[in-house]
């Protein structure tokens, strides 16, 4: 197999992995602080992408400049969801949280369908024609922007969590909610802020996904959300570095494994398309990991 094609697939996986990482970190933050898994997280990605699309098509400026605005809008939506959805049912059982997320999925998907119809929308990025030559291969500029932007986001996020008061309060709350409350941290405000931050990260992921040439329709959210969930299970609930590593592994595995299997199978002269299995790989990893370790690969015992 040609090595340059392989590298190209690798970069494609790296780029997909970046989207998963952004999504997974938001989900992980919300889980860490509130102990809530928001199944509607992918819908936040979808709405974020639509808001970017809407701002871009009504203003016509560079789509990358629109991203901060849509991120801010989504942070506010996240606050509303936390305040009127998850906060009132806190402590009434995990199943209720799952049911609430289902309600949110219906609400958000169909609101998007009502506002923007179910047609697939795309944005024509101003850099979509530019290919950056790297040795023998050429990479789209958008991918490089996204990979660099994700790295910058991750550094900023890590600094925020380690150095700022709010970041420290978030970590304290996720370690021990009661103790944090006793230390004078307003845990409910921390819940709100972490939900806002999680939604904002989902919006960034969705917007970058859209700008890099992917289509958005009201139903695109569920698959990335489940993959993000797979990422945090593999990387360990609450662990940010784990999420980064697992996100990259999943992004690359999804794109490389089908190609490898296909070239292996071709040796035996079997005609079968394994590209349809791309979306299933995340689940296979998830299922295998959970059979072996029901609390996740790096998860704590008894969680």
């Amino acid at each position: 197999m040609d090595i340059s094609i392989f590298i190209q697939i690798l970069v494609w996986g790296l780029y997909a992995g970046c989207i998963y990482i952004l999504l997974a970190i938001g989900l992980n933050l919300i889980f860490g602080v509130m102990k809530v898994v928001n199944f509607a997280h992918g819908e936040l990605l979808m709405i974020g992408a639509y808001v970017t699309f809407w701002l871009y098509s009504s203003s016509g400026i560079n789509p990358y400049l629109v991203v901060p605005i849509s991120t801010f809008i989504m942070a506010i939506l996240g606050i509303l969801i936390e305040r009127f959805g998850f906060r009132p049912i806190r402590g009434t059982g995990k199943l209720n949280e799952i049911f609430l997320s289902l309600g949110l999925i219906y609400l958000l998907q169909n609101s998007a369908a009502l506002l923007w119809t179910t047609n697939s929308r795309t944005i024509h990025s101003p850099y979509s024609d530019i290919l950056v030559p790297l040795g023998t291969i050429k990479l789209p500029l958008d991918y490089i922007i996204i990979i660099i932007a994700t790295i910058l986001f991750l550094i900023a996020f890590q600094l925020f969590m380690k150095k700022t008061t709010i970041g420290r309060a978030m970590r304290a709350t996720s370690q021990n909610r009661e103790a944090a409350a006793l230390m004078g941290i307003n845990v409910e405000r921390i819940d709100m802020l972490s939900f806002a931050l999680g939604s904002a990260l989902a919006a960034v992921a969705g917007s970058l996904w859209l700008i890099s040439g992917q289509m958005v329709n009201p139903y695109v959210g569920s698959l990335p959300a489940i993959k993000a969930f797979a990422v945090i299970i593999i990387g360990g609930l609450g662990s940010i570095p784990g999420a980064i590593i697992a996100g990259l592994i999943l992004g690359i595995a999804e794109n490389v494994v089908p190609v490898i299997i296909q070239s292996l199978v071709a040796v035996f002269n079997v005609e079968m398309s394994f590209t349809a299995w791309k979306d299933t790989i995340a689940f296979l990893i998830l299922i295998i990991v959970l059979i072996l370790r029901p609390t996740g690969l790096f998860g704590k015992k008894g969680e």
Partner: protein
Amino acid sequence: MNREKIMSVKTCLGFISFLIALLMPHIFGVSQYLLTVLIIMLVFILYSSAWNLLALSGQGSLGHAAFFGIGGYTSAIVVKSLGLPPLATILAGGIFAAFIGVLIGLTCVRLKEWFLAMVTFGFAVLAHTITLELPGLTGGWDGLPVQKVIPVTVHNYIMYEYYLVLITTVIVLFVIYQIMNSKVGLAFEAIRENELEANVMGINVMKYKLTAFAVSAFFSGIAGALEIHHFGYITPEVYGIDISFWPIIYCVSGGLCTIEGPILGTIIITLLDESLKNFGWTYERYIMIGLILILIVRFLPKGFVSVPEKIKAYLRS
């Protein structure tokens, strides 16, 4: 004494609703539209009750469409390859779904809450992918044409179909009711409340969890087979997210872990859905249903079945 009185009231209500259901085609005449809505409603009552049985053992599945679809596909393929009448193959669909249910259950017994939810969801996606990858057997994206239970050439075929589905549903509901009130049902509830304590009390948690999976998958498979033999075709859409989510919406809105909850929830939500559909609303009605689900989780966690109690409590205060 009081408990018995309540039970008898419920039995009476159940009997009356069964009689009304029996007389439905005679009251309103044999209307294609009405009976189609009722057939789908009955299929979903059956399907949600099956989901509810799994929830009774504390396991909330997000991927029941896997069983629904496997039941449908099995029945369709058996009819096509062996030429058996659909009435016999519906059972085959249920049995194969139960077999897959045990396999999935084996991977899920150690999982809880959202881990379980995610993995079951994953299995539905997996079933979808495998179905697409076997186009020789399943017809791929195009699906398969399926023989109807009652041939269309029979006069008033839809009425016979309705009675068939009604009787199947009533039998299944009776069986589920018996299971819920038996030792097995008690064991399920004990496991739901506290798995560790149940284990200490000598309940074989793994065995009962697998039983719940098998029985629930069996009835879901039957529901799936009934639905596709009603429609006359099957496509991979039976594995859709909607099919996994509808029983949850019905059960939660009706009342989780009760026998009448899924029935009431399915009837109310379906009627609402159909009447909004006649308004010409498409996305608005799903938004409504999403909102209703959120409001019920927030304000009526025991579902519609708890409304009389709530009213009583309100009147007393």
